[in-house]
């Protein structure tokens, strides 16, 4: 399928006006790294493409606003992967942005697009959910906020209205918090995750706190796993805890078997990867530069 026409919007406000006028036959395109692939594969795409890729200003910015970090929907993975602010405040997202796609894909792909595309394997999604991020939505009817964890309803499906788009994402800056992202894929780069996971936590008087865990590519949607979080929260780190957490994370997976992996392998890896993240957290407390995670995965 081809788009019959492309309209270039000068602002997100203009884009949502067009979406409201044209109805469900219109859709936004930013980096095009998902939509152009859908088109190539002959999958349904919007008839009218509202191109927002050339919009500049706050829609692309990554800024600290009081106790939150706000990332504009048009911020590219390249920008996030180079952001010192994101590296310091949500390393899990920083790490995911650095390994997602290829150089060329990261130069074009946007955070808003990764959310809107709603792939269960979207690499930015577990870090955003673990980081307690909120999506700020815009339509011609106004604005509303939805926690990122509540946004997804199925593969490629979100609760966004047809005339609504993601304007920005924000997450709280939690002092002393650690976060990390891991993924399992066949290739080191330029691959789609077989599964992924992100963990955020703090350590208070030797006890784990403020724990959030999210899994990718093991359910129809990126999955927050409250059972696993509850098991970790308030506990002292030890081997017995790791064993229990690994088992619980594997059980939390609702994975399927597809071209990339099997349900069983994905479930097993959930346990392995969440345990590895917890271990990395404790190790990084002794290497507070926060870089160990990234270097290890790149190595």
């Amino acid at each position, binding site marked *: 399928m081809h788009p019959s026409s492309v309209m270039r919007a000068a602002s997100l406000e203009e884009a949502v006006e067009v979406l409201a006028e044209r109805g469900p036959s219109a859709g936004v*395109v930013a980096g095009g790294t998902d939509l152009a692939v859908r088109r190539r594969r002959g999958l349904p795409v919007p008839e009218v*493409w509202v191109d927002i890729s*050339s919009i500049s200003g706050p829609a692309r910015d990554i800024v600290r606003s009081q106790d939150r970090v706000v990332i504009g929907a048009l911020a590219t993975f390249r920008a996030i992967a180079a952001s010192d602010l994101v590296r310091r405040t949500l390393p899990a997202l920083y790490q995911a942005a650095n390994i997602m796609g290829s150089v*060329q894909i990261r130069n074009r792909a946007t955070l808003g697009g990764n959310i809107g595309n709603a792939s269960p394997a979207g690499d930015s999604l577990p870090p955003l959910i673990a980081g307690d991020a909120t999506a700020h939505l815009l339509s011609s009817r106004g604005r509303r906020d939805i926690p990122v964890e509540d946004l997804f309803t199925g593969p490629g499906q979100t609760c966004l209205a047809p005339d609504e788009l993601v304007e920005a994402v924000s997450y709280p800056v939690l002092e002393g918090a650690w976060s990390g992202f891991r993924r399992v894929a066949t290739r*080191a780069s330029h691959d789609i995750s077989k599964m992924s996971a992100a963990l955020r936590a703090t350590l208070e008087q030797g006890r784990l706190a403020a724990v959030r865990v999210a899994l990718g590519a093991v359910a129809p949607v990126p999955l927050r796993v409250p059972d696993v979080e509850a098991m970790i929260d308030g506990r002292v780190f030890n081997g017995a805890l790791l064993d229990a957490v690994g088992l619980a994370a594997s059980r939390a997976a609702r994975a399927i078997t597809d071209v990339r992996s099997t349900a069983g392998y994905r479930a097993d890896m959930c346990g392995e990867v969440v345990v590895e993240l917890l271990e990395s957290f404790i190790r990084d407390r002794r290497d507070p530069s926060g870089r160990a995670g990234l270097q290890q995965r*790149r190595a």
Partner: protein
Amino acid sequence: MRIRVRVNGRDYQQEAPDHWTLLRFLREGLGLTGTKEGCGAGECGACTIIMDGLTVNSCLVLAPEADGTVIETIEGEAVAGELSPLQRAFHKHHAVQCGFCTPAMILSIKAFLRTNPRPTVREIQEAIEGNFCRCTGYQQIIEAVQEVTGQREGQEELGHA
């Protein structure tokens, strides 16, 4: 839609259907066939060009999205029939076999070296992660990059006989 672009320092204005990709516009609209189509889905990187200073898969960019941009393609590399240093290094190190990935590979490396003029081997590998070469095994390409960055002093060239 009428597309205005500057490609390799020359201004072009041309009508193109909205649904054309930038790749198709370059090849069929402007006749610049040095940029190749491989997978057409952002996987292989054969269509890589530089748009406003950044490498992109031109198969994933719609022609209207490129309106008003500054583009660099392989046709801008050799000047007056004289190969660029990067092209000469590719030649010397046998970094070209079938040649299909080469235009894009050159563009990816060109953009990369602007921000990282003395890269490590790992950094070179990461810089070309989005460019597949099914002939060389990449080693000769990495040697060619090290040649232009002056990092191969005292190192033997691999035997390619």
